[in-house]
C-alpha cells in the first residue's frame, strides 16, 4: 500500500514524444499536438490529479477527477494509436489507479505526502524516529499479558470466560491509545493544511510529528491485531478455531 519510492528529481517538464513540445509534468496531454504524454513517475499524486497538496480532500471531487481521467486515458481509446501512445495510455491508466488508491485512503495519503516532502517512511536502520519509552513499556507489558493468557488457554482447563474478560480489560488502554492517535493524526493533518502558506520550519515539524504518530499507530495496530487473534481463539466453540501457536512471523 505504500507509495512508490519517489525519485527525487527536480525535472519540471516532460517532452512530448510525438511533436517534441515541452509540457509541465502534471499535464496528461500535449498542449501542442493533443497526444497522450508518456507518464513520468515523478511521484506527486496531488498534482497528478490537479488538487492542492493538502490532507483534507473532498472524496467526491477526487472520485470525479479519477473517473474523468480514467475515461481520458482508457486504452480502448488508443486502440488504433501509435504503439508509443498505446503504451502511454496503459501506463497512465495504471499510474492513475495507484494514485487514486493512495490518495483515497487517509493514511496512505499522509505517507505519500511525507514521501514527496522528503520524509520517507523510516527504516529501522535509520533511528531518527524513536518510539516514546512510555509506549514501549506499555506495548511490552501488554504483550506479556497476552502471552500469559495464551499460555493459560493452551494449557487447557482454564475458564475461557474469565480469560476473555482479562483480555478485554487488557485491550482497553491500547484501544484508548489508538483513538488518541487517530485524533492526533486528524489534528495534525488539519494543522498541515492550515499551514499551507506558513513557515517552512513549522510545516516540517508538523510533518515530522505526523510521521511519528503514524509509526506509533502501526505499533498499536499490530498489538491490537494480536489481541484480536487471541480473542477469536477464546470464543466459545468458535466455528473455525484458529491455530495461534506462536509460529514465527514470515
Amino acid at each position, binding site marked *: 500500500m505504500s507509495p512508490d519510492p519517489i525519485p527525487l528529481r527536480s525535472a519540471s517538464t516532460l517532452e512530448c514524444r510525438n511533436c517534441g513540445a515541452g509540457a509541465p509534468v502534471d499535464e496528461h496531454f500535449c498542449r501542442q499536438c493533443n497526444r497522450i504524454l508518456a507518464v513520468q513517475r515523478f511521484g506527486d499524486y496531488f498534482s497528478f490529479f490537479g488538487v492542492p497538496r493538502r490532507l483534507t480532500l473532498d472524496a467526491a471531487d477526487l472520485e470525479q477527477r479519477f473517473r474523468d481521467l480514467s475515461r481520458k486515458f482508457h486504452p480502448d481509446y488508443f486502440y488504433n494509436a501509435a504503439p508509443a501512445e498505446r503504451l502511454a495510455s496503459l501506463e497512465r491508466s495504471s499510474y492513475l489507479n495507484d494514485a487514486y488508491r493512495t490518495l483515497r485512503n487517509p493514511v496512505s495519503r499522509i505517507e505519500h505526502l511525507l514521501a514527496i516532502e522528503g520524509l520517507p517512511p523510516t*527504516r*529501522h*536502520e535509520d*533511528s531518527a524516529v524513536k*518510539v516514546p*519509552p512510555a509506549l*514501549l*513499556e506499555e*506495548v*511490552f507489558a501488554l*504483550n*506479556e499479558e497476552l*502471552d500469559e493468557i495464551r499460555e493459560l488457554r493452551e494449557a487447557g482447563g482454564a475458564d475461557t470466560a474469565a480469560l476473555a474478560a482479562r483480555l478485554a480489560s487488557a485491550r482497553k488502554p491500547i484501544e484508548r491509545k489508538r483513538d488518541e492517535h487517530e485524533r492526533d493524526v486528524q489534528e495534525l493533518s488539519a494543522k498541515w493544511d492550515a499551514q499551507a502558506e506558513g513557515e517552512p520550519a513549522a510545516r516540517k515539524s508538523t510533518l515530522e510529528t505526523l510521521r511519528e504518530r503514524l*509509526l*506509533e499507530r*502501526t*505499533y498499536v495496530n*499490530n*498489538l491490537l*491485531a*494480536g489481541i484480536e487473534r487471541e480473542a477469536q481463539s477464546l470464543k466459545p466453540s468458535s466455528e473455525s478455531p484458529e491455530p495461534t501457536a506462536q509460529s*514465527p*512471523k*514470515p
Partner: protein
Amino acid sequence: MAYSDKVIDHYEHPRNVGSLPKDDANVGTGLVGAPECGDVMKLQVKVNPVTGVIDDAKFKTFGCGSAIASSSLATEWLKGKTVEQALAIKNTDIVTELALPPVKIHCSVLAEDAIKAAIADYKSKQTQDKTSSVGAGASV
C-alpha cells in the same frame, strides 16, 4: 525464504529468557522496539561492580523468530564480557552468526540497540549512585 538452523535453534531453545531486578543498581535494562513489525525487545545485563564484567544477561522479546534469535544470541555473547567489550558487539556480527537474510537485518539492529540501551542504563545508574550514595536501596 528459510530460517537458518541457528535461528531455529535459538527460536526453539531460547537462551536466558527472563528478567533481572530492574531496580538493582548493577542491572541495566534496555527496552527497544521496531514499530514497523510490532516487535518489542527487553534486554538486561547484570554487571559485577568490582570487575566490570557482565555476570548475567536476560532477555524477553515479542517478535519474529529472527528477533528472538538475535536477542538470545546477544545474551549468550554478553556473559563474561566487560561493559566496553559488550559495546563493541555489532549487528553485523549477529547477522553473520545467524546467517540472517537482508529483510531480517533490522532484527539484529534491534538487538544491538538493546545492548547499547541496557549498558547506557547501567552506566547512568552508576553515576547516579555516586552522586546520591545515601539513597542507595531506595526503590524508584
